[in-house]
């Protein structure tokens, strides 16, 4: 048997070809009577239609949640969920919170220490002590 092939799976590189938006659903919960939902009600009637038009790749759900503070929940492609409570916020601030959820990848927030993260091999290669000019001792 000269050579065998090993079966693997190609790894995704989101954005190298097509870019798949990671937020797949946004749920907007409001209360019809609660005072903390006043800004949310204004947001739902005034800002949300435009927001939906600009982001066709996200499924939007609006659902009442009587007697509770208003909440925006984001569902992501990786299966995680993120929620932000928007009680007593103005529509413009709620839009900012919705944008945070929209642009998130769904992963837990983590600190990036290196300027570049890549699965590609380094162009320069790994330094080897056995190659190049050897220093005389």
């Amino acid at each position, binding site marked *: 048997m000269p*050579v*065998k092939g*090993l*079966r693997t799976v*190609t790894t995704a590189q989101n954005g190298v*070809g097509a870019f798949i938006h990671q937020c797949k659903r946004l749920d907007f919960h409001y209360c019809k009577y609660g005072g903390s939902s006043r800004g949310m009600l204004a947001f739902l009637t005034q800002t949300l239609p435009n927001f939906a038009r600009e982001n066709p*790749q996200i499924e939007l759900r609006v659902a009442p949640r009587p007697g509770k503070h208003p909440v925006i929940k984001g569902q992501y492609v990786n299966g995680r969920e993120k929620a932000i409570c928007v009680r007593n916020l103005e529509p413009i601030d709620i839009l900012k919170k919705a944008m945070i959820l929209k642009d998130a990848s769904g992963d837990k927030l983590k600190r990036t220490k290196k300027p570049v993260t890549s699965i590609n091999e380094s162009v320069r290669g790994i330094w080897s002590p056995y190659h190049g000019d050897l220093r005389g001792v």
Partner: protein
Amino acid sequence: MKRLQLQRWSSTVLSPRARTVNRLHQHLYSASLRHQSTAAPLQSEPQDASIGTNFEDPEVMRQVRSAHKRKSQLQYPSPPVEAATNSAKLAALHARLYLPSRLPVQTLARTLVDASADPNADFNNESLATLGHDLLTYYTSEYLLCKYPRLPLTVIFAAMYAYVGPKTLAAMAKEWGVDLAAAPGGEVDPGYLQFRRVDPGTDVNAATDDVKTPRPYANAAKWRKTVTSKIFYDDEFGDPIKGASAPGEGVTAEQASATFVRALMGSVYLHAGRPAAKRFFEQHILSRSLNISDLFNFSQPARDLARLCARENFEKPVAKITSETGRLSRHPVFVVGIFSGQDQLGEGAGASLLEARERAALSALKGWYLYSPLNVRVPSSMEEDGASPWEPAHVDLGEVIT
């Protein structure tokens, strides 16, 4: 004796909806029936609901109408065509994948219905998946053969599996955010992938008897299967061809997701044409990362290299130590180069002389097999408008046979 024969003639007397599930009739009449939203529902309405209701109240009528609709949807195995335009999930998926606007959401909804959910070929994705599978394997194989003309056949099979194998396609569907329906049905949102699941406790990997391979002596034990014969008798991944699953059987989530991706490719080709399908293929499948040099599994690289040099009339390969350190220590390192005359073919470092020589032979063989010509063109690029004249692609002698 399985079916009550009375229903065959009684179906002409009864209302069309009262027909039981007769596969022939379903196949013949379903196309016209599906769109009839005004036909009477299967059962008559419950009497207590109509007593004392005000039929002029729009709210009540809306509820009655939606109840009718729900009941009529329940008798179909998959969502009706009209439901596609009302699904937010489906529209979001359409936009998320940048699908061409010429591909209607109704077709996208059809690609999400597996044959195990709806056996009717007019409403499931089987035909689209067949077309999509052919396109995917064609585009991938021509890319691999033109880009790496010297790849051994086993590695080509592995690379095909890595690019368009069922595992990869299922991972893609997951990364696209396609949700799986718990169970298929007419009332389910068409944005979910619908398929009948495998019964719990079923052995998925069990060898099935209904293997439809054209290979002679396929069941004979110890009958040698050459790699070359896999081109003729096996599928594009080098696996034996399996027959289609029985209509009542379930499929795994991986199979259903892979079929969906294939069907989507087929529907992009049908609705938006070849350039759009090619673009879809490049953006979603070819853009994924695969290191071809990781797919090789050599058993005797030094011997293979000697055979290769003999075939190509190179001088015999000779291993020479380039540098070394700590020969008598606990961690020696040897750097060995393989030379054919004055030319160095490969180099490798290892903790023993044998290991370093193996690695050097391996790198020399990979250097040979992974040769890639510059400015590669694939045959399907000739179908584009205004394509420059075709220059023959590099065709290699083939792998080293030992």
